[in-house]
């Protein structure tokens, strides 16, 4: 297990390295005009040149890359160049991270609790009206573009439930809608897959044996069916982490939440290279952590998966 974790950690480092390098290079492909913002017309060539040199963009690419790596290794993520000039990126993130983190975690928690419950209930009432309603919800979530129901929620539910339409860090009620909206996609996928895996398990021979043994239905459901259905479910955890990240980008701008999702969009548009690079690093670390957790969880649940031997469970 330890050996596997270390190996996995190394792999993750390599993945992260490739991701930041790609993002670094992509940002260097952006047109230079972007760096001047709306001052572009007023500046003459010499001033423009001075700005670029100041940002270190006139150095040869390999030098820039070398500096970038060595800064990263020293834990230096650079300073913002446009968004809030001369402010260290870390300080910017310190303000923004808590919002995104709390929002993401609460969305994840809501999705887990309600998604799994919905899945269990759908299995319990398979083929009945409750199951069909649940399926309807899942189909709608998967078929309708997220923007549509995010907007509908913001427009109508705020009215009906008297919830604030925009985020306000002092008002706890304003957390509810963003977190719920963000959890909808994950919730649907948890419910759908848990129902599917549980129904799968229910039809297996060992359940017949458990029944023939004289075990109560409830005990079979909890100790055999649900436990076994959780193994493939562990694969979903990383997916829902990724959903949550992508959801946050949209939700945060919709509700004006001062989090990292909105910041990323902003930073890309304004070509604030260090900021973009760091944000991508943070987001991809979270994604990779999710994947890793998924693998480890699966190995914990399923004794047949020996992570260290083959070096990977998937």
């Amino acid at each position, binding site marked *: 297990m330890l050996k596997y974790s270390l190996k996995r950690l190394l792999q993750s480092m390599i993945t992260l390295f490739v991701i930041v390098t790609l993002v670094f290079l992509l940002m260097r492909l952006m047109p230079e005009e972007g760096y001047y913002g709306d001052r572009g017309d007023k500046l003459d060539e010499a001033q423009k040149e001075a700005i670029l040199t100041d940002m270190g963009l006139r150095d040869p690419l390999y030098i820039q890359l070398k500096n970038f790596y060595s800064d990263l290794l020293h834990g230096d993520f650079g300073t913002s160049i446009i968004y809030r000039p001369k402010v260290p990126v870390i300080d910017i993130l310190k303000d923004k991270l808590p919002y995104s983190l709390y929002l993401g975690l609460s969305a994840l928690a809501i999705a887990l609790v309600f998604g799994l419950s919905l899945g269990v209930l759908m299995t319990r009432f398979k083929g009945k009206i409750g199951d069909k309603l649940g399926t309807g919800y899942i189909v709608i979530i998967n078929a309708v573009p997220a923007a549509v129901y995010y907007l509908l929620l913001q427009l109508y539910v705020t009215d009906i439930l008297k919830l604030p339409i925009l985020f306000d860090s002092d008002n706890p009620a304003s957390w509810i809608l963003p977190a719920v909206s963000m959890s909808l996609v994950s919730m649907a996928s948890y419910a759908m897959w848990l129902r599917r895996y549980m129904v799968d398990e229910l039809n*297996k*021979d*060992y359940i*017949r*044996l*458990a*029944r*023939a*043994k*004289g*075990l*109560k*239905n409830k005990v079979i459901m909890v100790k*055999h069916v649900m*436990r*076994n259905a959780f*193994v493939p479910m562990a694969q979903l955890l990383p997916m829902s982490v990724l959903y949550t990240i992508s959801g946050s980008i949209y939700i945060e701008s919709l509700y004006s939440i001062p989090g990292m999702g909105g910041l990323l969009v902003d930073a890309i548009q304004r070509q604030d290279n260090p900021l973009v690079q760091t944000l991508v690093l943070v987001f991809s670390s979270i994604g990779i952590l999710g994947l890793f957790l998924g693998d480890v969880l699966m190995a914990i*649940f*399923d*004794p*047949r998966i020996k992570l260290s031997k083959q070096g990977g469970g998937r």
Partner: protein
Amino acid sequence: MGAVKEKVNVKSDVVLSAEEIVIKFNLRGKNLTAIRGCSLELHKGESLAIVGESGSGKSVFTKSFMGLLDSNGWIDSGSIIYKGNDIASYKTEKDWLKIRGKEIAMVFQDPMTSLNPLKTIGKQVQEAVELHQGFKGDEAKKLVLEILNDVGISEPEKRYKQYPHEFSGGMRQRVVIAIAVACRPNILICDEPTTALDVTIQAQILQLLKNMQKKYDLTIIYITHDLGVVANVADRIAVMYAGDIIEIGTSEEVFYNPQHPYTWALLSSLPQLGVKGEDLYSISGTPPNLFKEIKGDAFAPRNPRALKIDFEIRPPYFELSPTHKARTWLLDPRSPKVEPPEAIKKIRQVWGGK
């Protein structure tokens, strides 16, 4: 067999008696009759084999003794008397829990899938011990180790902690048997216990079941379509066709003096009776459609020598001996004499030394 009469029609050694059982299933809005008025008496300590082709209702019939029919099936009429109660009338899970495991246990066909892959062997046996023998914790574990040892699993201490995927097919079937035995049932239903195993292991498992039967005083029902298994273990044989027992008797009687044309056909297709160079006998046609009402003898359409009455009226049982009876008009004194096929006569020569 002691024929001491306690109640009317109930002999003291009858542990379970199914009477005129009709089982129906609802499939896509249509009703299918899987078991058509099937009766069976099970005697204490015996091994009864139920044989018949796939779909003849062997499994469904015995599953109804434990309330394990699929959710779209039900016992339409008839009674199953066990210890003075009609368990066919049981509806709730609570009722069935009194029977399942405790009174009747089951060994399934495929050991590769009948164990929970994510629980240790020990825990799975222990579940049964804790449920039915009232032990907990260490005491239960001790008993589990004993049972594992009984079913021929060496190093039970080590094996207790292992998972099913670390066991071979034969070993897993031993564990499945251990689970069944750990329930301390009266009756053990073995649903094709050796079908999924290779031939060398088959004999071992059958021997194990025999030993368990002696040690724990079990009454065993074998469900199988392997007549070799039957010849090996069964005291009595019931032949099922299209949801009814068409012939039942002691092993000797059914093998050496079969009466029903279907039993003839079944035995004729035994590879042991084939002549080298000749095609092996096979029964033409397919079993009847169970969605439709079956008139007369269900086997008549596939029986080349069927009588006219076979298509019209369902034959009653004709008794040949106190233990042997068959549902065929051929046994009616008014029917013409029909000789059994050649192959049947050969059985005595081939297996006569048994």
